């Protein structure tokens, strides 16, 4: 197998912009163009343009597509209306999370499943295996799409100048086919930043043209190219989980505090789905013996907690940091962490993070750290 990183259709653009590139799940991706803090703040106050072409698109079609996805995933996909999208998960038989996903229903019998880059092959393999016996086709469309995201308060205005699509009628977590700057695109009102924004799935051949048109329209209102580094701090402030950090194969959705995505009653004829038995047990455990809870931590000092650092109270380890970074919006280090239930209430006293041997004090807060004003 080749170990050379894959390049997106926008690779030449990133290089011409002087981006610092990084290997991410086998892809060479832009980490930042100049200052990640400036990019972060631009997304919060104006807009940022992201290349997310590493995400894994899988198309599911056929008369039994809805029934199949109800069986393969934990959500009630059959109840998603055409043109809408849903956040869901795929788990193993033992209930462990294989990935979190967004499923777009593009037509009566057509869905697009978007997986994380690092899990795309796992998800594709699992879906392919689980499709046996269903009148449904699972297609690897990773090479069929480039993905650009425009995120931030200026994003509706920027996109409106380039499309006739009814953006006002496009709700959060919805997607419709349209034309943007003369390019055919699936326009979705989704994102991973906590801001209003759009994700544009296009042919890789059209990616440069669309990038150029978006930059031309967005630059006058303060839009800047934005890399993966600020994407991580944006999603962290918004309290959004990241696979490999807040979500792993060792956790069920109930352990991750996301039991609400599991639907035991489906719209299919059958309510059976992969992992059902293990998840029912996990749901019961969560009721009787609450697992560690995902909380927010805000630093009183300036030291930054990182993934894997122990959370402590009274000299004992009571949890573990899953993600941490200096928050540009709050001006303080923040973290997400799983902590024992008795220390999880916002305002709990005496909680700290062991930062290379020093116990630094942290405030326990409810997630998210940041919520946009509507």
């Amino acid at each position, binding site marked *: 197998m080749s170990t050379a990183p894959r390049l997106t259709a926008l690779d030449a653009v990133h290089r011409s912009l002087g981006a610092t590139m990084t290997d991410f799940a086998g892809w060479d991706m832009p980490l930042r163009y100049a200052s990640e*803090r400036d990019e972060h703040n631009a997304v919060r106050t104006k807009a940022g343009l992201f290349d997310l072409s590493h995400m894994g698109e899988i198309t599911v079609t056929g008369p039994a597509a809805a029934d199949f996805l109800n069986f393969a995933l934990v959500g009630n996909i059959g109840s998603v209306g055409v043109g809408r999208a849903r956040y869901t998960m795929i788990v193993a038989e033992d209930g462990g999370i294989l990935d979190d996903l967004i499923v777009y229903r593009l037509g009566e019998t057509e869905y697009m499943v978007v997986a994380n880059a690092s899990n795309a092959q796992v998800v594709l393999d699992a879906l392919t295996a689980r499709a046996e016996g269903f009148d449904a086709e699972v297609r690897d469309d990773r090479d069929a799409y480039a993905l650009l995201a425009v995120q931030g308060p200026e994003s509706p205005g920027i996109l409106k100048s380039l499309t006739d699509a009814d953006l006002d009628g496009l709700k959060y977590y919805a997607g419709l086919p349209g034309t943007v700057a003369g390019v055919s695109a699936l326009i979705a009102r989704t994102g991973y930043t906590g801001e209003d924004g759009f994700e544009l799935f296009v042919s890789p051949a059209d990616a440069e043209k669309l990038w150029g048109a978006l930059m031309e329209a967005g630059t006058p209102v303060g839009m800047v190219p934005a890399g993966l580094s600020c994407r991580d701090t944006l999603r962290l402030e918004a309290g959004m989980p990241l696979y490999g950090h807040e979500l792993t194969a060792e956790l069920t959705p109930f352990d991750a505090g996301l039991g609400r995505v599991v639907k035991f009653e489906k719209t299919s004829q059958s309510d059976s789905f992969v992992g059902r038995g293990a998840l029912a047990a996990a749901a019961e455990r969560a009721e009787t013996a609450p697992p560690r809870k995902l909380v927010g931590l805000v630093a009183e000092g300036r030291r930054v907690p990182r993934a894997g650092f122990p959370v402590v109270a009274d000299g004992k380890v009571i949890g573990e940091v899953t993600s941490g970074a200096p928050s540009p919006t709050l001006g303080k280090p923040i973290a997400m962490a799983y902590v024992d239930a008795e220390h999880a209430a916002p305002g709990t006293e005496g909680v700290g993070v062991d930062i290379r041997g020093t116990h630094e004090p942290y405030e326990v807060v409810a997630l998210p750290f940041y919520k946009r004003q509507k």
Partner: protein
Amino acid sequence: MSNPQQLRYSKEHEWLSATEDGVATVGITEHAANALGDVVFAQLPEVGDTVTAGESCGELESTKSVSDLYAPVTGEIVAANQDVVDDPSLVNSAPFEGGWLFKVRITGEPDDLLSADEYTAFTAG
């Protein structure tokens, strides 16, 4: 980026000024600052500390990671840059000037410090 000719450099990406009365100023290079990303926290050695060439004497924390700060020479710390403690972004905006980190009275030097041209070649490789 260009590395000032009058400075000397370590392979750990510190720069060292010419000495005056045995005291040199130390910072990290623009190359290192760019690699770190936005520096958000700096823990510098304190005045009176003794530092040893090649050993950790502080930390620079950026958005994505924390890096040890190494002493390029052995000696006694005679000043730490409080401006950087207050505003760590100086390390990014002016690594060779206002973003200096500490001043050290040199008692020993390793023999592998690099000239500007050697450091430029080192970081190009």
